[in-house]
Structure formats: structure tokens, C-alpha cells
């Protein structure tokens, strides 16, 4: 299996704090790769470097064999990188359908046109309706995003990211704040994407991680502790110590 994402020797410092300490990581094509670690381990910093919102001090990021270390966030999207946000980040004034339409429109291009009618771009709206129909949000198509529940917003985050037809999806805590039933739905949804799109999943919910991940990487104090299968992680003493030393429990 080839690697879709290869990270080599990535470093990021904030003043005296090393948030990302020489991290090397590989996500294989088609796999769901989870990234876990206690609070303050530098997961968000790492994600932000991967999607281009933060510039690393050193190291190299490759997507599908092409270097993207210094590309802008937009260019990375064009290279096939999609993402969801930990705190949902949507277009609050638009309806669900408009949000999705805009995401498809962004992928389709031709957006500096001022003399067309976006409502008349049929292919976009046909695709939007198809994607909504496949999701659980079809009934909420006309609802403004501001009126959605938290769970629905999380769902929409995922739908929007998928509308960009990414090769690799960065999922930043997709379960955060979800109830049990919603979590199960989200897990089922992500499971359904297995094989279609590679994923790097940052998550605190260990049930979800163990249910989904093909491989897991553990990040502690900015350093990559280990990468392995769920079973290997569970058994590893260093991982246990890192978690028991913190506030969180493994399992």
C-alpha cells in the first residue's frame, strides 16, 4: 500500500515551547489513521500545519508523493486535502443546501463570473441534492445553519469536506460534543467511507478510535510516541503511562 500522506521531521516552536517535535508520520492510502494524545500534546498544532494554517519551522509534508509543505491552505485543498473543524466552522447565514452548494461550487470553479446566475448552475444543485439525499440531513436542506443542532452541524462539517472530493480527510475531533446516539451515527458514517477516502482522525473518544482506526499514532508533548494497531497501542506501557499521568483514561 502506498502512502497518501508522508510527514518527515516536522517541527514547530512557540517561544520556548516545542509544540511539534520532529514528528514523522505516514498515512497509507485507504486507511483510517487515528492520532491520539493527552490534552496539550500538540494535536491541533500538528493538524493546523498539515492543512496549512500554520507554517512549520522545519520538516516536510507530502501529499500523494507531492510536497505541499509551503503550499497555502487553498492549494492543499486543490491537491486533495479536505478537513473538518473541531469547533464547527460553517456559513451560519446560509441554509444547509446553500452551504453544500457553495462547497461544490468552490470545487467546480468558474467563480469569478459576475454575470451568471448561481441558481442556474444546475449541475451544482443536482449534486448538492444527491449528496444531501445520501446523508441524514435531507430533511433539513432549507434550514439556516444557525438553527441546526450541534450534532447536525458536525454532520454538515463532514458533508462539506466530502464535497471537495478529497483524497485525504483530516478529521479534527468529529465526535466532540456529540451524544451517544449521534456518535454511533457518526462512526457508522465514517465507517461507510472506509476505502473511498483516506482519513487522519484526531479524536478523544477512545471507543470511536478503536472502532474505526486501522492504525493509531500517539502524540505526547509534541513527540510521536509510537504508531501501531489498536491492540499494540492498548498493550504499550508508555502509552498507558502517558495517559495515566494525565487526566484521561485509556478505554
Amino acid at each position, binding site marked *: 500500500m502506498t502512502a497518501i500522506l508522508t510527514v518527515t521531521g516536522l517541527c514547530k516552536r512557540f517561544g520556548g515551547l516545542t509544540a511539534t517535535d520532529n514528528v514523522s508520520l505516514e498515512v497509507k492510502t485507504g486507511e483510517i489513521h487515528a492520532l491520539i494524545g493527552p490534552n496539550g500534546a500538540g494535536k491541533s498544532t500538528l493538524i493546523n500545519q498539515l492543512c496549512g494554517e500554520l507554517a512549520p519551522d522545519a520538516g516536510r509534508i507530502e501529499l500523494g508523493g507531492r510536497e505541499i509543505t509551503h503550499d*497555502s491552505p487553498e492549494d492543499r485543498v486543490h491537491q486533495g486535502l479536505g478537513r473538518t473543524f473541531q469547533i464547527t466552522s460553517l456559513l451560519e447565514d446560509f441554509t444547509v443546501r446553500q452551504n453544500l452548494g457553495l462547497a461544490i461550487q*468552490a470545487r467546480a470553479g468558474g467563480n469569478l463570473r459576475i454575470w451568471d446566475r*448561481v441558481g442556474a448552475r444546475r449541475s451544482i444543485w443536482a449534486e448538492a441534492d444527491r449528496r444531501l439525499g445520501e446523508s441524514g440531513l435531507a430533511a433539513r436542506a432549507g434550514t439556516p445553519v444557525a438553527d441546526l443542532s450541534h450534532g447536525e452541524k458536525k454532520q454538515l462539517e463532514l458533508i462539506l469536506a466530502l464535497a471537495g472530493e478529497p483524497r485525504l480527510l483530516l478529521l479534527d475531533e468529529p465526535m466532540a460534543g456529540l451524544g451517544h446516539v449521534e456518535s454511533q451515527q457518526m462512526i457508522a458514517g465514517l465507517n461507510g467511507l472506509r476505502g473511498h477516502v483516506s482519513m487522519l482522525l484526531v479524536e478523544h473518544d477512545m471507543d470511536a478510535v478503536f472502532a474505526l482506526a486501522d492504525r493509531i499514532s500517539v502524540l505526547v508533548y509534541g513527540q510521536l510516541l509510537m504508531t501501531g494497531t489498536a491492540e499494540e497501542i492498548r498493550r504499550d506501557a508508555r502509552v498507558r503511562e502517558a495517559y495515566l499521568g494525565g487526566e484521561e483514561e485509556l478505554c
Partner: protein
Amino acid sequence: MTRLIFPALIFLSFLFLPVLADLLGESVLRTMGARIMIYAICAASLNLILGYGGMVSFGHAAFFGIGNYVVGILYHHYASGEPLWGLIPGSNQMLITLPAAMLVAGIAALIIGALSLRTSGVQFIMITLAFAQMLFFLFVSLKTYGGEDGIIVRRTNALFGLNMRDKTTVYYVILGVATLYFLALWRIVNSSFGAMLSGIRQNERRMAAMGISTYRYKLYGFVLAGMSAGLAGALMANMLRFASPDTMHWTKSGEFMIMVILGGVGSFLGPILGSAAFVTLETYLAGWTEHWPLVLGLILLIVVLGTRGGIKGLIDRLLGGRS
């Protein structure tokens, strides 16, 4: 169909305003109407970047003033017969001066926007203000063009052999241009680009995550808005037959912002309502009491503290629930 009623009503009021003015013997209504339309074009262009695009520009009068001066300067060279820089001949043809004003204002907006849009938030507000002030000081010191005294444009620009000395004719020319402008703006707002601009206002980070290079879109919007403001300024020079640096003073930028907010930020018809309200208030309050700034200040304060969404928001609420 119902949503067309309101714009149609506005158009018809402007269409019959001169007739009404003659009937009532209040010809000031015609002048007011013309000013309202011109300011509405400028406020609507500000609304495009501010209301639809989320860019709070405090220097929009710069482009209004540039349009104003393009007409003035072209007329100056037309009257003197000496080409500008020995190259560009002057003109008094509206079909030349209006596009020229839009072009020059657009180029200025491209330069100012390209630099300003590297910042955001308060810094963007201040840097746009700074550029407008620099232009203001530049024009105040231009001796050739009258400095702060401005340029007198002795005759309104010619158009299709119409009798442009007749104020009602000029009024209807302005109405024609304004109508075309708002139709065009309607298309822009509902275009692919319009959707992108609205998305950028709501959430720039999300747009970047969709692969949109927001800078390009914002700059494009800024240039379009600058061109429209230039158009408005050119019309103003034709109506007043005068161009002066006070059209680019920072308080003018403030007035355009007031019109947008008063009418309703991000609403298509808001700038027309806001401009109408502002011009009407200013005219009648000044006629009523010499302390009109006090009354105007109080009214504006109450509007901004007491209502959301300006006049358009108020009307929508009165008509029931639509926001």
C-alpha cells in the same frame, strides 16, 4: 412575484418624483431625488464589499472623489483645449467621462485594495481611511485643478444631444444610470462570484478550507465597488457641475457608512432607503433648526441602538417576520 413589488415601488416613486415636485411646488424634491440616487449607488457599492463581503472600508469616499475629479479634470482640459499631460484630450461627452471615471476609480481600487486587503479587522478600517486621506491631501494641493476650491464644470456633460441644461432631463439621465446600475448589481449579487463573496463574509476560514483563495475574491469585489463609487462620483460632478476634494474627505466615507447601516447592512435595497433617509433628514432638519446636527445625531443614535438591520429590517419586521 411579491418580492418585486418593493423594488418596483421604489423605481416608480423616483420616476414620478419630478412630476410630484412640480405639483407640490417643492422642486427641492427633484434635487433631493437626484442626490439620493447618486448616494444610493455609492452606498450600494460600499454595501457590496461591506454588507456582502464583510470588508469594512472607511475610505470609500476616495473612489467617489476620484470619479468626481475625472469628470472635472476632463472638462477642465476640454474647456482649455490643452490635453492632459499633452496626451489625453479633455472631454465633455458623458459616454466617455462616465466609463473613464469608472476605469480610473477601478485602477485606484486595485492598488489600494491589493495593499489594504493584506490586513483585516480594525487595521483594514484604518488603512483604507489612510489611503483616502492621502488622496484628499493630494487633491487639496493640486493647484492646476483648483485645490480645495475645486473645479467648476460650467456645463453638464453632453449625452445623445439631450438638453442637459434642463434639470429634469439630468434627473432622468441619473435615474436611467441608477436603474441600470442596480440591475447590474442584482446580477452580481446573485452570480457565482456573489455567492463566494457572501461566503467569505460569513466565514473566511471555511472558504479557505473549501479551497477558495479569499484574497483574490475580496480584491475583485473591492475593485467592482471602487468602480461603482467612481460612477456615482462622476454623476455627482455632472449634477452639481462641480468637483471638489470634500467628496473624498473622511467624513464623506463616514456618511456612506451611515447610509449603509441606516438602510440595512447586506440588504439589496437598504442603501437606497438609507441614502433617502439621510438626505431627507439632513435637508429638512437643516431647514427646521440651525442645531440640526444635534437632532440628526440623536436620531442616528436611536436608530443604531434601537433597531437591528436598519430601515430595511424594520420594514421587514412590520410586514411580518421576514428577516
